[in-house]
């Protein structure tokens, strides 16, 4: 058990840190979240800078232009990106973390040629068309139909929770190509250009009133058969290749941000004063923040342990569900503490006086969404119960 970084790892960190120290301030601040065109320019511009400097696709193989960094280097990367307050991956999220890796693993040479390098350099923006109103946790129950018509699929259906649809060039789309087959065996994975006829995008405001989600309505959209990744009706397996990329070091940067947020809370508590002194003088509050911060420290150690295990075994450890659950729990409790600190100042989402309402409420809403996104906490508990602890599965009402 050695927590010391090697000379190579330290060199990687200091090179990256000094690059970020120059480039992050130079890139300016992120545009308002509802200014989609400006956001695309900002996010893809940053992606381009990462690409030119050799920091894009940190986990991508070298042959596809990636850094092919070790898992420890990836951890360092996410740590430094967070410490430098570098721009969030933003509109590049789906392409770099899902679409690209899937095409690398399952695509043809022509498909790789068409997409891989352009995703990495920020020239292609992707969105995800997986979930449907009737297919959430039970994703394989999706109903969007794709009927073969010569060398095209004719696709009709309704997708939801599609991030960045407004600015995306392509959509990774799951469709049902065989309605007769068992649900996992009738799905195909298509690349849908977003400028095709029959695609309608309706923004779906979140409880924050805005955001990056949309619903996407498809009405007889004609997608070339050559845009299919993998075999027809083999899309569920192809999808699981993608989902595997979603776990692992995914929340490393967010955890570092959360450590910084704890210090923001302490400063906020110090600024709340009454005749008894500041809120930070309250022993119960100090204990609660100290306790949460201690748990966060243990979580970070858990991430390191799980990354080191994954390095040895070659696959993200079974610990990734535990990491997500624990991170979600701590995140919700820390941000709820923030909302309690705000008191009546928290009745306003814009800052009143010195109280950072917008920061704290924004983080709290984000923490609530985390228990739902990328596998709800309940699904994660099923995964741990069944795959890690070996407990019997719930009876499935429909045949798999």
């Amino acid at each position, binding site marked *: 058990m050695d927590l010391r970084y090697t000379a190579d790892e330290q060199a990687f960190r200091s090179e990256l840190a000094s690059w970020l120290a120059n480039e992050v301030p130079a890139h300016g601040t992120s545009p308002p979240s509802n200014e989609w065109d400006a956001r695309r320019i900002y996010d893809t511009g940053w992606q381009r800078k990462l690409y030119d400097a050799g920091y894009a696709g940190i986990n991508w193989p070298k042959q596809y232009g990636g850094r092919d960094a070790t898992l420890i280097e990836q951890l360092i990367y996410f740590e430094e990106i967070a410490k430098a307050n570098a721009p969030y991956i933003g509109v590049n999220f789906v392409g770099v973390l899902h679409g690209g890796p899937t095409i690398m693993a399952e695509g043809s040479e022509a498909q790789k040629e068409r997409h891989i390098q352009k995703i990495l350099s920020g020239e292609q923006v992707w969105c995800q068309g997986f979930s449907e109103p009737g297919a959430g946790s039970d994703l394989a129950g999706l109903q969007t139909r794709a009927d073969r018509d010569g060398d095209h699929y004719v696709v009709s259906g309704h997708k939801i929770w599609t991030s960045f649809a407004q600015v995306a060039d392509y959509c990774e789309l799951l469709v049902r190509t065989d309605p007769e087959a068992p649900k996992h065996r009738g799905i195909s994975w298509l690349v849908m250009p977003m400028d095709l006829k029959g695609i309608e995008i309706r923004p779906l405001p979140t409880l924050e009133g805005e955001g990056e989600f949309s619903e996407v309505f498809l009405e007889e959209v004609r997608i070339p058969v050559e845009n299919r990744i993998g075999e027809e009706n083999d899309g569920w397996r192809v999808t699981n290749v993608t989902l595997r990329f979603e776990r692992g070091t995914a929340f490393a940067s967010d955890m570092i941000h959360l450590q910084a947020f704890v*210090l923001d809370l302490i400063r906020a508590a110090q600024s709340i004063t009454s005749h008894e002194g500041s809120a930070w003088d309250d022993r119960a509050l*100090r204990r609660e923040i100290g306790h949460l911060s201690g748990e966060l420290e243990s979580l970070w150690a858990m991430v390191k342990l799980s990354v*080191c295990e994954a390095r040895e075994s070659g696959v993200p450890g079974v610990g990734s569900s535990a990491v997500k659950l624990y991170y979600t729990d701590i995140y919700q409790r820390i941000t709820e503490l923030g909302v309690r600190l705000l008191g009546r100042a928290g009745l306003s989402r814009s800052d009143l006086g010195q109280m950072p309402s917008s920061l704290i409420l924004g983080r709290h809403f984000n923490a609530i969404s985390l228990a739902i996104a990328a596998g709800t906490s309940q699904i994660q508990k099923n995964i741990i119960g069944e795959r890690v602890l070996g407990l019997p599965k719930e009876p499935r009402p429909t045949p798999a």
Partner: protein
Amino acid sequence: MDFQPTEDQKALREGIRSFCEGEIPNERFPELEKSKGFDRALWGELAEMGVFALRLPEEKGGVGLGYSDAVLVFEELGRRLVPGPLVWTHLAAGLIEGADSGATVVGGIDLFQGESTPIVIEYLDHLDVLLVLRADGIERLDPRTLNALESEIPLDPLTPIHHVESLPRGERIADADSARRMRLAGAAIVSGQQLGLAEGALDLANAYAKGREQFGRPIGGFQAVKHILAEMFVRQEAARGGAYNAGATLDTPEVADTQRAVSSAKLTAGDGAIRNARSCIQVHGGMGFTWEVVAHYYLKRAWVLENSFGTRDEHAEEIAQILEGLAANGDE
């Protein structure tokens, strides 16, 4: 960085685990209760296994291993609920003659944060030497000179309890810096035991949930039960992260703040031990509330360890103090 236990460490852990499973099966608990949680022969065997001499340098006759190794060893001792003043005797190796070999049984009382009444001492009748850990140094007392009253009903049936009205000052055998280091080491090693308790409680509950049938199938198949077990797994892994981090940070203090690492471990592993023990009882239903099922031993031991080398609240305040400094410096 390679935070995983090395092959040697895994072998060490396995060795201790199979020793504990062989020597201290559940069936032995009634006999250990009668002997008030202590058995000379078992003590000698633990010494033979290197439990006490583990971190003593080889040139002094020890095993010469580090804090992370100690955390792994105590993880296994915790998992099997091994009783006795294990941590104090381990900490006393090199400081008290005969502690490392098991010849001298050393207990202790942690008054690092000052005296508060009642002063409660574990295993007093079995001790040859009592250490008193104070902020200004470590003292040594002859336990037989104390005017102590034994609790008629100790919480943990394997941890006998005495209380004394006041402690005389003993012979000062180490300075304030040694005291501070002993407190950190003690808390880190206890966090290893707490991790072991969290694991033992989960293993027991998991086995029961697979075997116990209601409504025609194993109760572990119901999400209501499965999710309790999943939450126990998360707490176990959090405790592991914390405890291993404490051990590894003490081994290489240049990597991080040792106090922060140890305090984080003690409170996370404390949560894991206490809450997993309670969940273990819940998963067992009515049987979990009986003496016969060993679930209650985990809960009771968890509270003994919670009150060893700083409670969760005390460690949370230590962390708050560190964070206050960081907030002032604009760090993180």
